[in-house]
């Protein structure tokens, strides 16, 4: 049954991402917005757009009843949850389907299974998927958790069972930190995901974060779209992702991708999903978790395989058969995604806020800036600090790295400090260039990733620019776009 109108229950760049594919497919799109987002493009550029009012996230983007009410009112026949927010909320998926609306995502059963970090591992153990040592038990008493943590041996990782994205996570290195770690994870879990259940895992040294993109239809087809290397992280937040993973032989690549497909087949999965693995430097890998939704970093896969994952999500939700075979999916070239955060990496990564006076556009070919802001809009403290994703494709990895470094200079967010320069330092680091990636890359290279002093040349150019800009008297977001006819330049340098 063809979908005619989709409500996107999300905000920012991912709402726009869904909008683009829907537009290509001739499907109408309804968006929603909290009132403080009313000037952002997701609230402006859809076919219809409805306010969710103001208040906390629970009043707006997490307001299940209201989202369903707006869907009904607008006549949309499907909901795309994006990532984050309600994308992995089983209750919402049930409410949606109960209201006769198509949920563009997995079955509630898959969400429950994979959303529970403990239950998922138990299930996968049965179909022989490799797991890291850990405690995934139901007994959540402090006593048991402390005992199990000690049994696994420090360092251990304590995670909210329903969590993801660094929220509700604590690494504990010694006894004295243990109780606070457990309580912190429980409290954040309760707050962010309405569950205080935690699990404990062995913290593997210098692991790589390798994940596999999956897509399954309801006709028994389970495909992978190869892997992504997402090891460059800071405090469990991914910073740079790429595909193909460097320094991985083709045999290992196919093996890990096939393991992921076994999981999808084993749980009879539906739609887009990602299996995240911890991989040791010698190529052993363990199942970490499965995200039952589109990932932030899905564009690198799209660029390298040439397939539109959102389109397949919609086709699958319509009950259609995936229009391709595993052998039709190939990797070509290299794609890198950088997450541009509103933060100051040289001041303890302190989040930054402000009005974006101007967003620079990419100038090179095969470069995408997925961005949820416009010139003149504000970055506040209420939402995720990710401003945009810079996604770059190159014919090979060195070219992709060099294009990414150059493109980072294009995508200035004038008025709000970002991690732009910091991303360039990572991309230009010899170990990154050599593909020596692991999840401790950022802390391990802390000193080499510090800021470089300005050279005289650079300061002189700044003085030159500042001197001419001094004539700009306008304040705020006003911008006079005018090519000034500098008559004195007529015979310039000739």
């Amino acid at each position: 049954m063809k979908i005619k109108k989709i409500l996107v229950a999300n905000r920012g760049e991912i709402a726009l991402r869904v909008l683009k594919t829907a537009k290509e497919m001739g499907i109408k799109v309804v968006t929603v917005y909290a009132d403080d987002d009313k000037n952002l493009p997701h609230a402006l550029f859809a076919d219809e757009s409805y306010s969710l009012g103001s208040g906390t996230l629970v009043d707006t983007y997490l307001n299940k009843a209201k989202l369903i009410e707006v869907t009904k009112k607008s006549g949309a026949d499907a909901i795309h949850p994006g990532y984050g927010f309600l994308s992995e909320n089983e209750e919402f998926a049930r409410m949606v389907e109960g209201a006769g609306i198509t949920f563009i995502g997995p079955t509630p059963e898959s969400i429950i299974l994979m959303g529970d970090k403990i239950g998922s591992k138990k299930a996968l153990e049965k179909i022989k998927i490799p797991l890291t040592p850990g405690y995934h038990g139901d007994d959540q008493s402090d006593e048991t958790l402390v005992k199990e943590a000690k049994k696994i041996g420090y360092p251990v990782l304590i995670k909210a069972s329903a969590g993801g994205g660094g929220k509700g996570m604590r690494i504990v290195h010694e006894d004295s930190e243990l109780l606070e770690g457990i309580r912190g994870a429980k409290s954040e879990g309760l707050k962010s995901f309405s569950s205080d259940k935690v699990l404990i895992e062995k913290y593997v040294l210098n692991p790589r974060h390798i994940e596999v993109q999956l897509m399954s239809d309801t006709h028994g087809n389970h495909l992978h779209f190869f892997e992504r290397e997402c090891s460059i992280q800071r405090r469990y937040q991914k910073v740079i992702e790429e595909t193909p993973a460097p320094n991985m032989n083709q045999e290992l690549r196919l093996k890990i991708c096939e393991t992921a497909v076994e999981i999808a087949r084993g749980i009879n999965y539906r739609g887009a999903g990602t299996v995240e693995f911890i991989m040791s430097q010698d190529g052993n890998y363990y199942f970490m978790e499965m995200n039952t939704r589109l990932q932030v970093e899905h564009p690198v896969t799209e660029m390298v395989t040439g397939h539109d994952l959102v389109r397949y999500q919609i086709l699958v939700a319509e009950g259609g058969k995936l229009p391709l075979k595993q052998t039709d999916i190939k990797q070509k070239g290299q794609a890198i995604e950088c997450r541009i955060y509103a933060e100051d990496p040289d001041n303890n990564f302190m989040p930054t806020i402000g009005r974006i006076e101007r967003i620079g556009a990419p100038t090179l070919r095969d470069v995408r800036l997925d961005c949820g802001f416009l010139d003149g809009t504000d970055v506040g403290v209420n939402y995720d600090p990710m401003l945009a994703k810079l996604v770059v494709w190159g014919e090979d990895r060195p070219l992709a790295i060099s294009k990414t470094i150059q493109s980072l200079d294009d995508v200035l967010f004038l008025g709000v400090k970002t991690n732009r320069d910091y991303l360039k330092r990572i991309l230009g680091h010899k170990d990154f260039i050599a593909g020596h990636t692991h999840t401790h890359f950022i802390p391990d290279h802390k000193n080499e990733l510090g800021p470089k002093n300005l050279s005289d040349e650079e300061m002189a150019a700044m003085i030159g620019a500042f001197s001419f800009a001094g004539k700009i008297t306008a304040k705020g977001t006003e911008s006079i776009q005018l090519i000034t006819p500098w008559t004195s330049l007529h015979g310039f340098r000739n």
Partner: protein
Amino acid sequence: MDLGINMEKLFVINCEEIRAKDFSQIDGVVSFLLNGKKYSYRLISKDGTQLILDSGTRVKASVSSHSNDGESTVMTMGREAIMSSGTKKTRKGAGPVGGLISPMPGKIFKILKEVGSDVKKGETILILEAMKMEHSIRSDKDGKVKKIPFKTGDLVQANVLLAEVE
């Protein structure tokens, strides 16, 4: 801004005072000496915040509109800096000396200690919520809470005193 020759002009770039000697700005050309070397830039084009200069090679630059305190963000040659002219020192992210400072903008989520109560080093005094994360603000010494200028639910800027322990 057309200035005579032999001027010294002071700029502040990322809190550092930079003196440009023999500064002149005439007919769309600015030139000066910096650390003994001569620099000269001709303005080629200006489009809002976007400038193109020429100093033999073209130099692209972005300069944000002045904020209230005369500071601009300047981006050129891939580098970014906070800049102003004159003697005014630009602020840095360090905040006031002493006391417990907000590491980022956020909301006071929970206050665990009352003013006047005893605290140990490392003990959490209050919890700041920002970017959907909780951040424990802990005492940096053993002592007594002297001041907590906010109440639960207050929004706070970065670099603001959240508590004082004596």
